[in-house]
């Protein structure tokens, strides 16, 4: 099993770079009413940073644990994957505690009669016995806290998936695609508390994760020539342009009157379903990925420059930085509410948040180095550090 996009040092910095950038974008998107979030990709097409994050997570998971599975066997690799899932679970519960703190504060401080109805969001505080247990079971998930539970579920089932991917990659990918189709067809999703379903349907989103894993285990090599062909690039660029035009009809008033999408066409494409990873979203991610692979070679010198270094180190510690980003988005929103929501404040909060993310990533790296766990001291480490923040 050899992956062409992995250098001799074992590390494709593009993965770290784009995962780092995705983490920044997720942070910016999670601060509501933030003018800086205008720069994020969700405003220029169908997919957003979540797709990038999940795909790269699948890729790195397969890369790291795939090697472990070959060297140490199914049981050891499986145990490592489950340990990783446990770490993410703990991180999720930590974020939930922060959410509880924020919402409890709001409950006691916010009395605007205009928003009496919105205060129903606090109802769950009345039955902590129910909600806390449901949160521990990952069934109760507050807004903006849906990605980690998805990730946990994907990792829990990953050992057998990885096993199959190593033996019959095409069959595994086909099974994943079949599951995606079934999820759409039969409306399969996990139940949420108190009602409804998971915001990120694991039965649909697994396709992106498995596809990432498949690419890591040689799929990218097989796709390589087709992926880099002029035809694919042209098609991808055309689709990206199409998505930009559609996205502009959402935000630029009158633009849709200018373009005038026919009603049947609107009925066809809307709503673009994030929960079930709409085909339009998946295709948009594929187009972005194809263009990226085409124009950003792995040997791109900038990958080693100081300019991209901050994003790369964030991508290398993705779990920590992801959680930090969610926390910072809460804190940033809190600052906007309590201090000022002016535009300068939004820019300040966005910039500060990213600086804190970079500083923390550097700190974590330093810790690992002094403890002798860093990639520099153990280049052959088959454990998680290698693939950037583990998986």
């Amino acid at each position, binding site marked *: 099993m050899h992956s062409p996009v992995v250098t001799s040092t074992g590390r494709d910095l593009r993965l770290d770079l784009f995962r780092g950038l995705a983490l920044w974008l997720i942070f910016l998107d999670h601060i509501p009413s933030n003018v800086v979030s205008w720069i994020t990709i969700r405003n220029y097409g169908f997919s957003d940073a979540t797709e990038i994050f999940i795909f790269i997570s699948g890729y790195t998971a397969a890369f790291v644990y795939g090697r472990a599975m070959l060297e140490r066997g199914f049981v050891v690799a499986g145990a490592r994957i489950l340990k990783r899932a446990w770490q993410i679970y703990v991180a999720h519960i930590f974020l939930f505690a922060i959410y509880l703190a924020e919402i409890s504060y*709001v409950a006691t401080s916010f009395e605007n009669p205009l928003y009496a109805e919105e205060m129903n969001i606090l109802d769950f505080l009345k039955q902590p016995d129910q909600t806390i247990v449901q949160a521990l079971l990952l069934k109760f998930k507050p807004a903006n806290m849906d990605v980690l539970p998805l990730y946990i579920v994907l990792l829990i089932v990953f050992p057998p998936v990885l096993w199959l991917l190593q033996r019959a990659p095409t069959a595994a990918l086909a099974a994943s695609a079949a599951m995606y189709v079934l999820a759409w067809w039969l409306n399969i999703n996990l139940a949420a508390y108190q009602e409804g379903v998971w915001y990120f349907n694991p039965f649909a989103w697994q396709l992106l994760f498995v596809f990432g894993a498949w690419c890591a285990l040689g799929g990218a090599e097989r796709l390589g020539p087709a992926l880099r062909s002029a035809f694919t690039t042209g098609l991808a660029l055309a689709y990206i342009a199409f998505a930009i035009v559609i996205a502009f009809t959402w935000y630029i008033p009158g633009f849709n009157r200018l373009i005038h999408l026919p009603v049947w066409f609107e009925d066809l494409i809307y709503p673009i379903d994030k929960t079930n990873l709409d085909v339009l979203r998946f295709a948009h991610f594929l187009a972005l990925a194809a263009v990226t692979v085409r124009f950003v070679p792995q040997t791109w010198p900038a990958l080693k420059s100081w300019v991209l270094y901050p994003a790369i180190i964030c991508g290398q510690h993705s779990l920590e930085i992801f959680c930090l980003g969610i926390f910072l988005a809460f804190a940033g929103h809190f600052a906007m509410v309590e201090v000022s929501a002016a535009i300068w404040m939004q820019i300040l909060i966005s910039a500060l948040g990213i600086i804190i993310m970079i500083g923390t990533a550097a700190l974590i790296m330093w810790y690992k180095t002094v403890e002798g766990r860093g990639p520099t001291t153990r280049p052959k480490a088959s454990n998680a550090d290698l693939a950037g923040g583990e998986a």
Partner: protein
Amino acid sequence: MRLMAAAALAALVFADGAVAAERPRCGVPDYLLFGESPLNRVSKVVATQKQLRIAVVGTGSSALAGPDGPPSAYPARLEAVLGQRLPPVEVKVVTLLRTRLTAEDLAKGMDKLVADEKPNLVIWQTGTIDAIRRIDPDAFKGALEDGVERLNRGGADVILMNMQYSPRTETMISMTPYADVMRVVAQHFDTPLFDRLGIMRHWSETGAFDLYAAGRDNVLAHRVHDCIGRAIAALVINAGKLPAVPAAQAGR
């Protein structure tokens, strides 16, 4: 905040896009308020019978608490403004408050509502409870379609009204998927959408109102509801192509 950039762009593209609502304080750009969906039954009943019966069906955010709440809430304001702007028409607005109910719960009651109240127009305010409870957006969509169908079958035009813009709870309640669904359903049925979320966000961004305020400020709530009432009145007049007195002359 995207709406702010959108508004800036709109100002460039539609430099003539005059303010629709009445007072400068609660001005709403045309693109946020007006669409192309008609209110044919409203047009007809106003032209032929000189009367208009409107039912507002909604949850908590369609009402204000306290003794001076009901006359200050937007349904009462809508009735007052329409009365001023449509002098020969007898306008009646009834409010059917269904607190804490989801769109699905509300949709089931639509047949009875049409039979009991015989409205020409139903303003269906919904989405907040669904967003709070994180109802499956697909189920939400189905409920909306069911409700609008029942209302249309019963002979009423419909305006869908989405959630309030509530900046303090924005990280806790994810409104966007539900607002998107409401836009899709409105488009599908060619029925107007009153984008309360976008309009209130516009007011917040332009500084018309400080919606971040935390205190027990009844004045703010009353003023916001007054402005919402005026804006809906403008939408009803525009979509129903009603022969109205211009807002400036009708104002008190």
